[in-house]
């Protein structure tokens, strides 16, 4: 995918993303009183990159590593019977015990809440965390399930005919969050 600076409105630029990650890292530490039994689990794929950035920031602040995992929620989706073809699976890699942990689920965009429902079911099959918290870079509203984020980078009111596109350096793009109208969004291959 190529960047299209002419299309869409920039919600966060590189510095904005950095500041949001930094603030969320501090908030996570404040809420959990340090890194004690803390763990971060990113949702494939965007959430994994954000989770790693958060872990790096937390490590810098606390001088102590926090474990990071990756969770693929595809097999827990509620629309597998509706979609025409099966979505591509990605890896679930959680190289630590979840039991008794304070797990912060991390995703790039919070929208309907269905992904988070699937992620919580997925986590519960892998262990019994003490708590599950939710951190997102963007909350764009339009929830369809009773789910809310504990840590939010930026709240953005959006229309149903709009899409939020998060591009990150880890995927070979420029760090940026764009708000796109649907026509432009589908040209970028973004699913709402």
């Amino acid at each position: 995918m190529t960047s299209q600076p002419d299309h869409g409105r920039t919600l966060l630029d590189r510095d904005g993303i950095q500041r949001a990650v930094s603030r969320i890292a501090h908030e996570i530490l404040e809420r959990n009183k340090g890194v004690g039994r803390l763990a971060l689990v990113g949702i494939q794929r965007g959430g994994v990159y954000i989770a790693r950035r958060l872990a790096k920031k937390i490590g810098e602040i606390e001088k102590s590593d926090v474990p990071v995992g990756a969770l693929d929620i595809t097999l827990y989706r509620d629309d597998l019977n509706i979609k025409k073809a099966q979505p591509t699976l990605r890896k679930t890699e959680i190289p630590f015990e979840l039991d008794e942990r304070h797990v912060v689920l991390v995703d790039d965009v919070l929208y309907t809440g269905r992904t988070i429902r699937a992620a919580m079911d997925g986590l519960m099959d892998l262990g019994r965390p003490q708590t599950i918290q939710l951190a997102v870079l963007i909350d764009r509203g339009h929830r369809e399930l009773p789910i809310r984020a504990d840590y939010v980078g930026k709240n953005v009111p959006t229309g149903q005919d709009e899409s939020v596109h998060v591009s990150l350096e880890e995927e070979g793009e420029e760090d940026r969050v764009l708000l796109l109208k649907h026509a432009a969004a589908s040209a970028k291959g973004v699913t709402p």
Partner: protein
Amino acid sequence: MTSKQKHLLSMQELSVERITEILTTAESFKEVSGREIKKVPALRGKTVVNLFYEPSTRTRTSFELAAKRLSADVVNIAPGSSSATKGESLIDTARNIEAMKTDILVVRHSMAGAPALLARRLSCSVINAGDGSHEHPTQALLDLYTIKEKKGRIDGLTVVIAGDLLHSRVARSNLYGLVAMGAKVRLAGPGTMLPPLMGTWIDAAPGQVERFTDLDKAIDGADVIMMLRLQTERQSGSFFPSVKEYARLYGLNGERVAKANPDVLIMHPGPINRGVEIAPEVADGLSSVILEQVTNGVAIRMAVLYLLSGGAST
């Protein structure tokens, strides 16, 4: 997004992209089988029927576990206890099963082409779990997966397929799969058991497929040795003077393995005839990945069931 393909009938019909997609998907499912709770809800509400007209332990159990770990419901139908004994035809049996709203039919049959016939007549998905001496695609896929996992690649490797090539559906499926993925294949066995069709295979992939009647020459410098079971139940004539002689000339023993590449992989689709095509010390030896093939088989079948059960009916 994955391509929409309803049946899995043979390796011959699979593109390199599709094979790669199945192998990659299986990596995710192998992780599921390693969990304490070995279950995901992906196929909740789907029904998988194992219709096996030939005896099977490994393949049937593997499909059953794969379906159960995906949360599908599974029904097993064995030959002796089915209406086939009352003279019902294969198509009638299958259509009756389908009338009970089943989603995926896994078929093993002694007749080549039986799963393809059912695929044409039924609206549910059909998976070939072995048809006569024709094909056994999920076995080839799990073999490819095991090779890729152990060697890091398939492209450019030299793979020996040795033994009863004439009766082996595993050999045919693996030949198509290995050639597609860029491996060099050496087919080794007694001259009487090299199938007549082999010429066309060699013509189709010049330089990539070779035939050997001398096992020692075939395994010289090979990266993988895939032994085939001597299928006495399918043999109608005499192909070699005695089993003892076959074991001496075409059995994989410690002496032969000692002369092979030190990092050679020894594979066998099972069930093994210990002391015939493979010596016990080789089957249980350090180079053997026979049980890992079985482990990977569940992941491959989960991947195939998942990809074939793709969403809304068209």
